[in-house]
C-alpha cells in the first residue's frame, strides 16, 4: 500500500508539472488583459495533435513537433487576441463567451481532421520505464517534467529580466501606471498571447508523450488550469507550480485510493474548499491587501 501511495505521489508530481504550464498560459493572458481564455485547453490539445502528426508521419520523436506546434498555437493564439481586442463593451464578460465558442470550434475542427480515436505516443524510448528506488515512471514523463521545469525557468527569466516581460508584469500590476512608464498595453497583450502560445505548444507536446489525447480533452485542461490558478491565488510562477503539483498529486491519489471516476471531481472539491476557506488562494493571502 505504501508503495502504491509513493507511486501515485510521484506520478502526480510529474503530471502536475504539465498542468503548471497550461495554467501559466492562462494566468499570463489573464494578468495582461484581465480576460480568461477558455480556449487555452484547446490550444494545448492542438499542439498535442501536432506532435501526433509529426510522430505518425515521420517517425521522429514527438518533441521535434514543438516548432510546428508553436507555429499553429501561436497563430491561433494571436487570432484569439485580435478577436478579443475587437470587443468594445464588457470585455471581461463577452470574452468568456467568445473564447468558449472558439474552444468549441477548435474541438470540432480537431474531431473533423483527426477523428475521435484516442492517440498516444508509440515511441519506445518515451514509453520505456525507469525506476527510482521503489517508484517507476515512463521516460516520457521524466522528459516532460524536465522540459516543463526548463520552460518555467525560461518564463521566470523572461518576466524578470526582459523589457517585454517586465512590461507584462507592469501591465498586470497597474495598467494606468504602466502606460505612464511608456508601455503600450496592446503590444504587451499581444506578447502575452504569443508567449501563452509557446507555453501551450510545449504543454501539448509533453501531454502527448506522457498520456493519451482525444478531441474532447480541451475543456478539461482549461478547467484544471483554472483550478490551479485559483489555488495558487497569485500569478507567481512558484505558486502556480506548487498548486499544479498539488492538483496532480490529489488526482493521482484519488485514482489510487478511490476510483478514476472521481479524478475530475476531486479537483472541483479542492477548488471549492479553497474558495470557501482561503479565497485569496494558498499563496495569495500575503500579497493581496487593501
Amino acid at each position, binding site marked *: 500500500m505504501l508503495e502504491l501511495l509513493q507511486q501515485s505521489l510521484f506520478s502526480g508530481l510529474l503530471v502536475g508539472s504539465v498542468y503548471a504550464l497550461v495554467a501559466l498560459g492562462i494566468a499570463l493572458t489573464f494578468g495582461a488583459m484581465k480576460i480568461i481564455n477558455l480556449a487555452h485547453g484547446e490550444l494545448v490539445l492542438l499542439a498535442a495533435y501536432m506532435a501526433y502528426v509529426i510522430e505518425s508521419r515521420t517517425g521522429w520523436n514527438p518533441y521535434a513537433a514543438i516548432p510546428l506546434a508553436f507555429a499553429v498555437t501561436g497563430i491561433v493564439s494571436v487570432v484569439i487576441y485580435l478577436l478579443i481586442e475587437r470587443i468594445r463593451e464588457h470585455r471581461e464578460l463577452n470574452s468568456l463567451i467568445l473564447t468558449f465558442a472558439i474552444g468549441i470550434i477548435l474541438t470540432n475542427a480537431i474531431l473533423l481532421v483527426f477523428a475521435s480515436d484516442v492517440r498516444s505516443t508509440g515511441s519506445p524510448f518515451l514509453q520505456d520505464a525507469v525506476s527510482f528506488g521503489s517508484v517507476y515512471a515512463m521516460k516520457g514523463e521524466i522528459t516532460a517534467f524536465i522540459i516543463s521545469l526548463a520552460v518555467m525557468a525560461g518564463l521566470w527569466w523572461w518576466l524578470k529580466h526582459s523589457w517585454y516581460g517586465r512590461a507584462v508584469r507592469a501591465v498586470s500590476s497597474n495598467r*494606468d501606471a504602466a*502606460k*505612464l*512608464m511608456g508601455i503600450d498595453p496592446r503590444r504587451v497583450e499581444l506578447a502575452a498571447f504569443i508567449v501563452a502560445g509557446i507555453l501551450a505548444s510545449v504543454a501539448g507536446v509533453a501531454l502527448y508523450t506522457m498520456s493519451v489525447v482525444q478531441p474532447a480533452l480541451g475543456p478539461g485542461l482549461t478547467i484544471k488550469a483554472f483550478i490551479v490558478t485559483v489555488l495558487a491565488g497569485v500569478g507567481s510562477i512558484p505558486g502556480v507550480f506548487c498548486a499544479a503539483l498539488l492538483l496532480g498529486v490529489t488526482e493521482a491519489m484519488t485514482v489510487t485510493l478511490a476510483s478514476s471516476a472521481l479524478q475530475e471531481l476531486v479537483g472541483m472539491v479542492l477548488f471549492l474548499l479553497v474558495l470557501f476557506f482561503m479565497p485569496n488562494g494558498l499563496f495569495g493571502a500575503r*500579497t493581496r491587501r487593501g
Partner: protein
Amino acid sequence: MLEVRQLRAGYGAINVLWDVSLGFPQGELTAIVGPNGAGKTTLFRALMGLIPHQGEIRLDGRALKAKTWDLLEAGLVMVPEGRMVFKDMSVEENLSLGAYPRRCRNARARNLERVYDLFPRLRERHRQLAGSLSGGEAQMVAMGRGMMSEPRILLIDEPSLGLAPVIVKEVFSIIRRLKSEGVTIALIEQNTHIALSVADHVHLMRSGKLLMSQKADKVDLERLHDLYLARETGAASF
C-alpha cells in the same frame, strides 16, 4: 517650453477642462493650485495622452504626438496622484520600469545609483515589495521612478497627499533639487503655501478654467485665496 492652447478634455460626455491655455517655461517650476475637482489632474492626464483632448499641446513649438509612449520618448514624465506604484513588485523593479522608454534604457544602472543617492531609504529597501511601503516611501518610489525616465518636463501631481508634514518637507527638498538640475517642472498642489515656496509661476484653477496666472514672487495672496475659496462673485461659476 511646453505650451497648451485652448485645451478641452473630459471623460466621455462630461467635459472638465474649458479652453485652458498656459505655458510651462523651460527650467522653471509652474504650480497649479486649486480646490478639489478643479480639473488639475485632468489637465495632467490630457497632457500625458491618457485621455483624449481637443486643442493644441506643443513642445518647443512642435505639436506632440497623442500616444503616451511617444510623449515619454519626447521627455514628458508624470509622477501620478496617489503614487501608483506597482505594489506586487520590489522597489528596485519599480524604479527599473521608469527606465522603460528606449532613450533611457542604457542609463538604467547609472540613474538607479543617482536615485539611491537621493533617496538612501530606497536603497535600504530595494528588495521590499512596494505595496508594503509607507506613504512617504511610496512617494519617493514614484518620484524616483519618474527620474529614471530622465524627464525634460516632470509633471508631479499632489506629492504631499496624505503625507506627514516632515515627509512633505523632504519631498519638496527633492523637487527643489530637481529644479536646480534644470528639469522643467509642473506641479499640482492643493497646499498653496508649500506650492508658492518652490514655484516660479502660479496658476489657479477652478471649475476647469484658469482664473489667475502670476509670477510666484509677485503673487497677490489675498486674491489667490479669495478665488481659491470662491469668495469673489466673479469666480462663482454655478
